């Protein structure tokens, strides 16, 4: 792994060069409907740099075999690459130990793992789970399962009108029945970044562990799970410029021992007999079956790629694009932005007067501008803001002010047609 901020070649700690970065992403040079692609949907899934795709391809062409169980050379090479990927994720999240990193198939599975392995075995009728109204369905549905199946109670914490988390309400929602606080680190709709360290401190003061949904947070913030003191942190590969089919859960070692296996199969056992079974220790215990080996290698390549930049410079770049976009859309009096929390990340959701998000997205698409339209897997949040859907432009490291200009031109056109 390329260590962040320490490269003495001068490659990093330079200002972020977006033109150079764009050249790393093959798809960005394509056209859509005859127009240059303006990809503003990285919040749903980011595009992948050549280096990630090539690394996976090369690994599969030269060093591939199944991991862990083999004595032969390729099996060793593949195991080394897979376990090196785990250390890359460990360092990316600032975890103290590599066995605190469990590979999953994505962010959703990482959260379900906490639900099935940590919470489900001990949840009792009437136990409470605290979550916010801005959660993604992936951080809602697993808790609904526990409501339906075990009689858990979901305690919803509101956001303020600007989309910021009502931290006092969250604090008040945590009580002696609370078994978990499940909270996003960054909203995929509002762009709100939650004060995770403060949330953890308040929850811990009442003896309650915290699971953070870092699907967006890990992309746009620099994560240090030890400093945050968060108990569980879920990430997903495809949003962080990595492949699909891979994600990870950071889980504090203290919890891992008591956590029940989730999927059962190869790799996660110690001994299997007809009438008894014992399980391996973490992380193997939670990685049943052949893992997503090639994808883990790809995820590590993506994290290396991101760490090859000065992360602060990338963040500054993204904020610049967002601020520019926020200022430009303020020119349009028929457009209402949802989510204006202080310190928010580079996601812009909005409603357009008299235009349905899908119609708007169709018109933008014809201009080559890709935005998301819909409920963004956040129906409770839609309800909170009294809408059924929004349009969303989400920005990644490869976006530019020119992309925002293209969005603006598309919005003007939509107004012409639909307004």
């Amino acid at each position, binding site marked *: 792994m390329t260590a962040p901020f320490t490269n003495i070649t001068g490659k990093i700690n330079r200002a972020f060069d977006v033109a150079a970065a764009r050249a790393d992403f093959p798809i960005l040079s394509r056209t859509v409907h005859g127009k240059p692609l303006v990809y503003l949907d990285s919040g749903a899934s980011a595009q992948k740099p050549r280096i990630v795709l090539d690394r996976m391809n090369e690994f599969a062409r030269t060093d591939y075999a199944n991991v862990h169980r083999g004595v032969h050379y390729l099996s060793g090479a593949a195991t080394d690459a897979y376990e090196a990927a785990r250390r890359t994720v460990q360092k990316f999240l600032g975890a103290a130990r590599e066995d605190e990193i469990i590979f999953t198939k994505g962010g959703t599975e990482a959260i379900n793992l906490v639900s099935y392995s940590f919470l489900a075995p001990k949840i009792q009728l009437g136990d409470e789970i605290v979550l916010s109204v801005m959660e993604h369905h992936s951080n809602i549905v697993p808790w609904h399962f526990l409501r339906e199946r075990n009689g858990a109670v979901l305690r919803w914490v509101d956001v303020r009108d600007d989309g910021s988390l009502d931290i006092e309400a969250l604090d008040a929602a945590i009580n002696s029945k609370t078994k978990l606080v499940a909270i996003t680190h960054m909203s995929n709709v509002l762009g709100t970044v939650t004060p995770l360290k403060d949330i953890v401190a308040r929850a811990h003061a009442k003896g309650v562990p915290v699971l953070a949904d870092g699907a967006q947070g890990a992309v746009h913030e620099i994560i240090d799970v030890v400093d945050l003191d968060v108990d569980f942190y879920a990430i997903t590969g495809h949003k962080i410029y990595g492949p699909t089919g891979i994600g990870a859960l950071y889980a504090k070692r203290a919890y891992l021992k008591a956590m029940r296996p989730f999927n059962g199969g190869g790799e996660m056992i110690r001994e299997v007999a007809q009438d008894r079974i014992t399980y391996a220790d973490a992380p193997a215990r939670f990685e049943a079956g052949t893992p997503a080996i090639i994808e883990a290698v790809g995820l590590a390549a993506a994290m290396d790629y991101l760490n090859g930049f000065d992360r602060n410079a990338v963040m500054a770049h993204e904020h610049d694009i967002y601020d520019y976009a926020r200022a430009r859309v303020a020119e349009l009096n028929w457009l209402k932005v949802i989510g204006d929390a202080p310190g928010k990340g580079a996601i812009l959701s909005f409603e357009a007067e008299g235009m349905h998000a899908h119609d708007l997205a169709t018109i933008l698409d*014809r201009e080559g501008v890709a935005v998301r339209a819909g409920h963004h897997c956040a*129906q409770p949040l839609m309800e909170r803001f009294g809408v059924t859907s929004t349009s969303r432009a989400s920005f990644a490291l490869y976006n530019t002010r020119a992309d925002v200009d293209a969005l603006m031109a598309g919005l003007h056109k939509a107004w012409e047609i639909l307004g």
Partner: protein
Amino acid sequence: MDESLRELYQEMILDHSRHPRHFGTLEHPTHKAEGYNPLCGDKVHVTLVLDADSRVADINFTGKGCAISQASASMMAEMLAGRSLEEAQKLMDGFIHLVKGEDATDLSPDDREHLDVMAGLSEFPMRIKCATLAWHTFSNAIEEGAA
């Protein structure tokens, strides 16, 4: 200006979506159904009265969604009123062929002309489900929605 967009969002469509015909809920329907597209959240609720001859004596809808889904529901209600089930089925088949850009010879010349405003949809495959939602809901109402 992109011609296909102009065709998709022509005046007639926008007019139907803004001033939907047959909008509302019948008080004593013989059949009803609710349609929902979970991908975009579009909703359509159809109520209708089938008379003794299996004719659509009256039909209403309510809904929320994009211009295409609302305009399509409005046009559907307008065109189905008074038809027999058999005619309705033929119209629906023709409509679906039309929006998919397939041969819509099963439509009568009149219906074909009336529905011409929807033909542009075939250029927008991702929006076809918006246009067919109301029709599928109608079909569900007939099949399983006896009130």
